[in-house]
């Protein structure tokens, strides 16, 4: 037993010591823009919006079969159920029956075949939520069952794919492996993960006039909802407007998936002429919408005596589910991150995008990167155990160099590599070596409990790999009292994007943050915006907003210079005031004067990420503008009787560049780590042999709760760091990278399992998530026990 330790946390830049700075300037630990509304219950989520007159509520009727032909459908009981106003099937979709974002293989409602258990087959609109959901259970559907493929390995065997397999190769991997002094093969298995945003998927479609439609949608991508709804309804994009003020979490799960919800609500609204709300309950949400892909990765690696990798071949097979969705890009990113922070000179990465009769998997924080890195970290760990070396030493000999050994398998030269510095710092601050020795001695005397420790690095590429998505727009409106409405194409899902972008505008215009109101993401204000994804929200929208604010500032500067008869460079905006020659006036006064002089006080801003250039046919070039780095050191204890496991201490050092908001960034790092730890420990998706997902609510699917936060948790943002690229105020993206710090938890558990073996070179056969069952399995294998 150990005494409880106070949480020790260091926050960079908590106070802006510079008194002349505006409130909420860039770099200050300003609270989330909605913090007060969150705590007083007055933040409006989509289901909280006052309901329009005549609102109907919708529900899906879903497939009970994993794979079947629909022989016939009798919906008469559904139609006759109390409160039912409309029932639609695939044939009622006015436009193409599809919401697939990339490839048209995602029917809104199933046609003659169902491809996963839970797939929407029809939808019903009724006067109450309860009436709709009850009616949806009354369908009589005659299925002819077909053979179902329920796991990626079977799919691989049968060559069942949603997209063609892809290979990324450099050098001669096979030759390098064959000639290496040491060779290993192995398999890394990692489970999927449900996003488990607390607010389920929801959309409200409201018919307005002349056939146009307004939608509220809980979505990371209002633009795509607009486009998908227009297509499904046979309307032009101009006829559909989509708004989203905030989401109650998203994590990638509201990137492509909300289109299904919005299209269905829209079709029912168009058909009935009444507003329609479709809100999935938790179980429907988890059954119908996609998750993180589970991966099975075989590897073959050749290495030298120090553990340096000479040649490596990966064979990734991922569960894409029943359709392509975003699986192409997810698997590409898995390939791009199969190096993590390591130089792989001779490398071949095969990627199979397996089609299974399970729900179509989609984006989730990290977007394939975590799975690629999961496989890579296992390779490095296995090498270390094979050589009897400390895994950290093997990690280090494989790190990318700064001047040489610095080109990724896809041909991008890494120009900002700081992984060695971060790992050195963390190794020192955690007393890693001493603790490892102490743990070994302790384990030798402890038969039941075993401890383990691991320090793992993260390198994560920032930018959408689909180059065209790396663009953003913003709209800044200044009103005559000197206050500002800020709008941009990004969406707020809790990550603090709105406050960060508002800080950028506050800094640019030199006005207090309280003078700026962030307004809902709205397709009528900023058109064609990309999804808020790929960690790129503040990079893209911050730049676009600064661009808009600077346009207005330039106009005000020009006006002021002219009006007060001075040079433009004598006009200075500073802390809510504007100094013009010898005069000082408030920002509001200048704005009002400019308005009277007919100066435009509204501007659109635009930004596109420079330097990126990537050929998706060859998978080479520069897909990423820059990389984000971090490292985590985790210590765990496991019970070898039961497989139960617990983190005892975690140290994290993460690079956010020059943070726009250290409080928000710290929140992303901590929250991302815990989410990654959940992915690799307690969160398990389980399908029964029929293909029904049986972990579809918090009773059965276990995300971390408060007691899962380690008792000793020390998180630090890398100090005096700045992005070497010219990003917004030299900050770095922080949404996804910290999730992969969770890999240290898995490897610490692996380390503890290894301590159970009499063979010091034993590489644990531990599958993720490291549930008690998987850990006990690995412990028994390590001990040479067999079960039952």
């Amino acid at each position, binding site marked *: 037993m150990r005494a409880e330790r106070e949480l020790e946390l260091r926050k960079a830049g908590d106070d802006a010591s510079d008194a002349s700075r505006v409130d909420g300037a860039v770099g200050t630990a300003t609270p989330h823009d909605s913090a007060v509304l969150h705590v007083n219950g007055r933040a409006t989520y989509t289901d909280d919006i006052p309901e329009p007159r005549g609102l109907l509520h919708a529900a899906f009727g879903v497939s009970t079969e994993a794979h079947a032909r629909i022989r016939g459908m009798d919906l008469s009981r559904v139609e006759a159920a109390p409160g039912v106003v409309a029932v639609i099937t695939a044939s009622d979709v006015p436009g193409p029956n599809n919401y697939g974002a990339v490839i048209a293989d995602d029917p809104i409602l199933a046609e003659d075949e169902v491809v996963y258990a839970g797939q929407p087959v029809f939808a019903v609109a009724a006067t109450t939520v309860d009436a709709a959901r009850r009616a949806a259970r009354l369908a009589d559907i005659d299925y002819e069952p077909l053979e179902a493929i329920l796991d990626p390995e079977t799919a691989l065997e049968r060559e069942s794919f949603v997209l063609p397999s892809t290979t990324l190769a450099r050098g001669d991997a096979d030759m390098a492996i064959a000639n290496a002094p040491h060779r290993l093969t192995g398999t890394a298995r990692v489970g999927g993960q449900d996003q488990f945003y607390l607010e389920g998927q929801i959309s409200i479609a409201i018919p307005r006039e002349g056939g146009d439609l307004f939608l509220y949608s809980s979505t990371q991508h209002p633009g795509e909802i607009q486009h998908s709804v227009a297509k499904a309804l046979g309307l032009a994009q101009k006829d559909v407007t989509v708004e989203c003020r905030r989401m109650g979490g998203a994590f990638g799960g509201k990137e492509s998936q909300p289109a299904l919800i919005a299209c269905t609500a829209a079709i029912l609204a168009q058909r009935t002429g009444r507003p329609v709300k479709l809100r999935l309950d938790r179980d429907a949400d988890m059954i119908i919408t996609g998750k993180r892909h589970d991966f099975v990765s075989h590897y073959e690696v050749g290495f030298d005596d120090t553990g340096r990798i000479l040649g490596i071949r990966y064979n990734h097979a991922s569960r894409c589910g029943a359709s392509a969705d975003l699986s192409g890009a997810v698997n590409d990113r898995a390939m791009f991150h199969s190096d993590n922070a390591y130089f792989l000179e001779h490398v071949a990465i095969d990627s199979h995008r397996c089609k299974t009769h399970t729900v179509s998997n989609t984006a989730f924080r990290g977007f394939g990167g975590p799975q690629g890195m999961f496989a890579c970290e296992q390779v490095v760990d296995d090498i270390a155990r094979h050589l009897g070396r400390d895994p950290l030493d093997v990690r280090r000999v494989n790190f990318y160099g700064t001047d040489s050994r610095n080109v990724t398998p896809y041909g991008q030269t890494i120009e900002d590599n700081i992984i060695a510095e971060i790992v050195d710092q963390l190794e020192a601050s955690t007393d890693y070596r001493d603790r490892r020795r102490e743990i070994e001695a302790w384990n030798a005397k402890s038969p039941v409990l075993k401890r383990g420790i691991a320090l793992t690095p993260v390198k994560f590429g920032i930018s959408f790999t689909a180059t065209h998505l790396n663009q953003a727009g913003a709209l800044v409106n200044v009103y005559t009292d000197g206050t500002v409405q800020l709008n941009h194409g990004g969406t707020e899902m809790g990550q603090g994007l709105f406050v960060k972008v508002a800080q950028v505008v506050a800094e640019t215009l030199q006005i207090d943050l309280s003078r700026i109101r962030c307004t809902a993401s709205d397709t009528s204000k900023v058109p064609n915006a990309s999804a808020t994804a790929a960690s790129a929200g503040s990079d893209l929208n911050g730049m676009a907003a600064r661009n808009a604010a600077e346009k207005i500032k330039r106009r005000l500067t020009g006006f002021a210079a002219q009006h007060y008869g001075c040079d433009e460079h004598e006009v200075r905006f500073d802390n809510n005031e504007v100094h013009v020659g010898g005069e000082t006036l408030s920002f509001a006064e200048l704005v009002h004067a400019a308005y009277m002089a007919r100066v435009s006080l509204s501007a659109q801003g635009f930004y596109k990420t420079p330097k990126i250039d990537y050929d998706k046919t060859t998978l080479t070039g520069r897909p990423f503008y820059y990389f984000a780095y971090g490292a985590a050191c985790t210590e765990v204890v496991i019970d070898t*009787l039961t497989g139960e496991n617990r983190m005892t201490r975690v140290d994290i050092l993460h690079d956010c560049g020059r943070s726009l908001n250290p409080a928000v960034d710290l929140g992303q790092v901590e929250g991302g780590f815990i989410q990654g730890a959940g992915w690799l420990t307690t969160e398990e998706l389980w399908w029964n042999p029929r293909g029904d997902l049986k972990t579809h609510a918090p009773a059965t699917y276990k995300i971390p709760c408060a007691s899962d936060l380690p008792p000793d948790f020390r998180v630090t943002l890398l100090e005096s760091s700045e992005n070497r690229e010219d990003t917004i105020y030299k900050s770095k993206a922080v949404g996804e990278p910290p999730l992969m710090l969770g890999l240290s938890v898995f490897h610490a558990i692996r380390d503890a399992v290894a301590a159970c073996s009499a063979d010091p070179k034993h590489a644990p056969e531990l599958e993720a998530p490291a549930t008690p069952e998987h850990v006990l399995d690995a412990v028994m294998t390590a001990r040479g026990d067999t079960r039952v």
Partner: protein
Amino acid sequence: MGDAVNPTLRFLHDGNIVEIDHAAPTRTVLQWLREDRMRCGTKEGCAEGDCGACMVVVASLNEEATTLDYRAINSCIQFLPTLHGKELITVENLSPAAGPLHPVQQALVDCHGSQCGFCTPGFVMTLFAMYKSGAPEARSDIDDALAGNLCRCTGYRPIIDAARRMVTLERPAGRHAQPHGAATSDEERSAIETLRALNDERSLHTESRKGTFAAPTDVDAFARLYAAEPHRRILAGGTDVGLWVTKDYRDIDDVLYIGNVEALRDIAVTDTVIDVGAAVTFTELMRVLLDDYPELTDLFRRWASPPIRNAATLGGNIANGSPIGDSMPALIALGTRVLLRHDHDTREIDLESLYIDYQVNDLQPGEFVKRIRIPRRRPDQLVASYKLSKRFDQDISAVCAAFSAQVEDGRTQHIRIAYGGVAGVPKRALATEAALIDKSFDEATVRAAMAVLDEDFSPLTDMRASADYRATATRNLLYRFFAEATGLGATDVYTYAR
């Protein structure tokens, strides 16, 4: 006293008495708030009491009707008529829209405790209940208090910080901002008076198009009504029955609520027995039971979460008889007996004999669990209970094991072992007990008995664990009991990591 009936549901909310004449029996508090009152601060996250986004606080009079107890509960599975005579407090009540924040709220803002904010009102209400009942400082106590709330964004660190910070902040005026231990304010006194008036002797009996809700206060009236109308669904804490409605869309027309029966809400401790009324909640039970059996602290702490324990009753858990209910293995191991009542008749049986087969029990139509009689601790009694699940807090057991033994001169003189999760019902390990009794309590005997556990149980595979894991863990938990009892040093990872 007795049969006087009140057809109108009355409770206190927003400082006013809410009166509902034809309250539907299974409308949830959350539905009422969001749909009828357009009070949308309280959220639906799961509709099964597992995420806490719907958390509200219910204030009720203490036994002497002199003060208020503030308890966080999940409004998503709480039926509205159960609020009769109580006060409902929601997130909107803690601070005016434009006014100063409640210390709980301010602490969360200060600590950056919200990101997406959807879970936040639920955390606010859980923290508020802590604030009103004596906020703990130790990390593990804070964890326990927060076990019923899920947050997917923050990783909890700032929320735990806020739980410590809230009691240090300045308190604005108003009743709710006065913490545990503060003098009773006039405002609170007036709430107490109002609740006293609402809690007259009459039993609530509502009638609506959706069915009836009968909530007798008298145990004889309760027994009579159930014997006469055995089709009625007994509702206790509703933490399972609630899900029949919110998840399975089952119609429950006529509810018989046990929670207001005075005579079933007490715990009587004698020299030999802890005699627990069926309507006693887990929160109340723990206060008494753990004095005798501190070894069961972790088990009960891990029994669901505080809001569920605030609502759920021991009688409900026992009558429900789920094979994965966590209280039964321990109670069976302790030799608990249950008192059953049908109209005027009562009978007492061993708890384990209540369970016949999966979802089949020995209760006859119109018969109900009246009291639960748990033996007092014997000197030298060894007691342990272990729960295995994917997550430490608020998870359902893959395997739950309980042991009670007495070892004299190295020999096992008494042994009772019960498991949950490895058979269709919570069940004793009779063959294993036979392999241990009257034998030397040593490693060889225990290892031999571990093999016998396979005769007692044939577990199944499901989403919580495979049959293989359950079988192995079932054996290993017996070994853990032995190792702990004999001081071989085994402890569990949770204790170690605390």
